[in-house]
């Protein structure tokens, strides 16, 4: 009897030990996979995750990790497959949140807003104050031009200490897109107080000031943006601010900076044409519009400018050709209609 009991204990023990050893092996594979993923060795990570799975590691956790790995490597189909597998397992709340959030982001990235929203709302069903879900929902609503809804999602982040900058920036940008510039300015200003180096915040604030016709402040912001990251567009916007501030020489100098950065951007020359036109220097304006058209013959803006300059220089035939082309490019547009009007004037048609 004693002998039997001894063997029974021995058997249970060895079974237990075998199980522990198996779990430990699977755990090691999982840890190695995590490390490889961290080091960017996706191939090794995938292999180790598979080994962990084969060795009996928690299927939900492995699938979730693989989903994340595929998502990071840009294989959305693979990521969705693994994340759906994870969701089929019994996940903890935290893991379920991670799966839903990842799926939401993947579908958002692929512009499938309906599915993205479904998963993000699943996150909120688990944790109503989940900040990342609110933030991503706000981004989706913003893209869908549903600004009141986007703003409402952002309100859930209003008290977030962790995401104060993100809250102010995105809230400001939502108001900017919505066209409520007064409020946009307030939030973007707050974002800049938190992070004075944010290119995004300065850029958005520059746009807001420009839209409010506050060219002095807009110019200051664009200058700062150009100092953080020199780009032709910033110099073009600076030129427009200066042009509106009637500082035409400085505006032209700003365009020269833009040309240094993007010599083949037709807009650098088209804007030059606009500035010379406002000063009634039609010859120089025409030269600029001609150069713009060499680069982009399909620019309705430059074609109209060419026509206007020719008309003012009494070159009616050339003006007629330019206006004709402008109207033909898109006769439903306002530029098409004003070109057609000029054509009628030239032809004496009332």
């Amino acid at each position, binding site marked *: 009897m004693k002998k039997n009991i001894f063997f029974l204990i021995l058997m249970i023990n060895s079974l237990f030990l075998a199980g522990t050893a198996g779990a430990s092996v699977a755990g090691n594979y999982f840890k190695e996979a995590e490390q490889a993923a961290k080091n960017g060795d996706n191939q090794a990570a995938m292999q180790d995750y598979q080994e962990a799975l084969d060795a009996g590691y928690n299927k939900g956790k492995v699938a979730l990790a693989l989903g994340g790995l595929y998502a990071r490597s840009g294989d959305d189909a693979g990521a969705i497959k693994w994340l759906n597998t994870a969701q089929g397992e019994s996940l903890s709340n935290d893991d379920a949140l991670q799966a839903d959030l990842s799926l939401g982001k993947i579908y958002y990235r692929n512009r499938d807003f309906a599915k993205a929203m479904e998963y993000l709302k699943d996150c909120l069903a688990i944790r109503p104050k989940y900040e990342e879900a609110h933030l991503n929902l706000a981004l989706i609503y913003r893209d869908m031009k549903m600004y009141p809804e986007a703003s409402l999602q952002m309100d859930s982040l209003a008290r977030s200490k962790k995401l104060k900058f993100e809250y102010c920036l995105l809230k400001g940008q939502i108001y900017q897109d919505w066209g*409520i510039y007064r409020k946009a300015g307030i939030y973007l200003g707050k974002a800049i107080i938190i992070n004075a180096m944010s290119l995004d915040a300065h850029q958005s604030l520059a746009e807001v000031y420009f839209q409010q*016709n506050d060219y002095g402040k807009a110019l200051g912001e664009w200058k700062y943006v150009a100092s953080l990251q020199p780009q032709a567009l910033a110099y073009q916007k600076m030129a427009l601010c200066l042009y509106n501030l009637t500082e035409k020489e400085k505006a032209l100098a700003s365009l020269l900076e833009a040309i240094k950065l993007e010599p083949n951007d037709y807009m650098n020359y088209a804007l030059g044409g606009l500035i010379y036109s406002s000063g009634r220097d039609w010859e120089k304006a025409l030269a600029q519009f001609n150069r713009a058209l060499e680069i982009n013959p399909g620019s309705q803006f430059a074609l109209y400018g060419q026509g206007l300059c020719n008309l003012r220089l009494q070159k009616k035939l050339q003006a007629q050709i330019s206006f004709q082309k402008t109207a033909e490019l898109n006769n439903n547009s*306002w530029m098409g209609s004003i070109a057609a009007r000029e054509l009628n004037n030239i032809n004496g048609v009332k």
Partner: protein
Amino acid sequence: MKRIFSWFSIRIILTAVMLTVGYGSLSAAALNEEDLWLDYFWQEYLALPADQKPKVALVLGGGGARGLAQAGVLEVFSEEQLPVDLIVGTSVGALMGSLYAGGMPVADLVKMAQNMTWSKLVSLKFSPVGLYSTKKMEEYITRRIGDKNFYEMKIPFACVAVDIRNGEKVILRDGPVATAVRASATMPGLFEPVEYRHRLLMDGGIIDNVPVDVAKFMGADIIVAVDVSADIGLAKTNNSLLILSQVMYIRGTFLSQEQLKLADLVISPDVKDINVSELERGDECVDAGVVAARGKVREIKKLILNRVWDKLP
């Protein structure tokens, strides 16, 4: 340590999200070719002598609390330097219009609309002809723009009321502004009528809620109307005040339809679900006014340019 780690990791993840969705990339709007020429010609228009410019009228309709949206519309007009050569208003439109035409800075007008309460405008009276007196409204206007007569307004202004003795539409454009506005914004049954120049006046909305015709009489070349009428189907009707305002607005909406056809352009802020008495939703109203007006700026500029095209240098 764990907290710091989680704080950093959240920020890193969010930054990655934002970069992935183009949030951190160059987000400046590319230049809009049409806007560039539109702004060019707009500057040419602004430089024209006054006598060569068309007379632009802004007609502000009635609608109780919804009318606070007009502060948002005026904010956009001011920012965009859109001309306002004449203002005609009814009821809350008369109130907002008088303050703007009287020289109140638009930023103050917006703040006022965001913080408006009934106690600033009316006081309980229990008179046989109305529960409330609107005398406070008169004082409110006077405090903000002074004790002005119509001829002293910075922008020519008129408002509309109805004489309840004979049902006549009265166009108020002479005498003290504050009293006239008070008369124009006096809802029947609730507010006591205003005795004014041998007439017994009440809310202009009874007879002409969006007085586009008045702007035409006054020589406007271009008329922009702001319609803040309600969605009648959405209105609450659970007390006598709301039923009364509902009756008034059913009539007003019906009459406005013809008036609005006379306008060159109509701005309709999305305030249809806001009740006539919900002044506490002022901020929402202002935003709706801004958004609606912003959406019409290009159209207004084109409309004006179209009229002066041959006069541009």
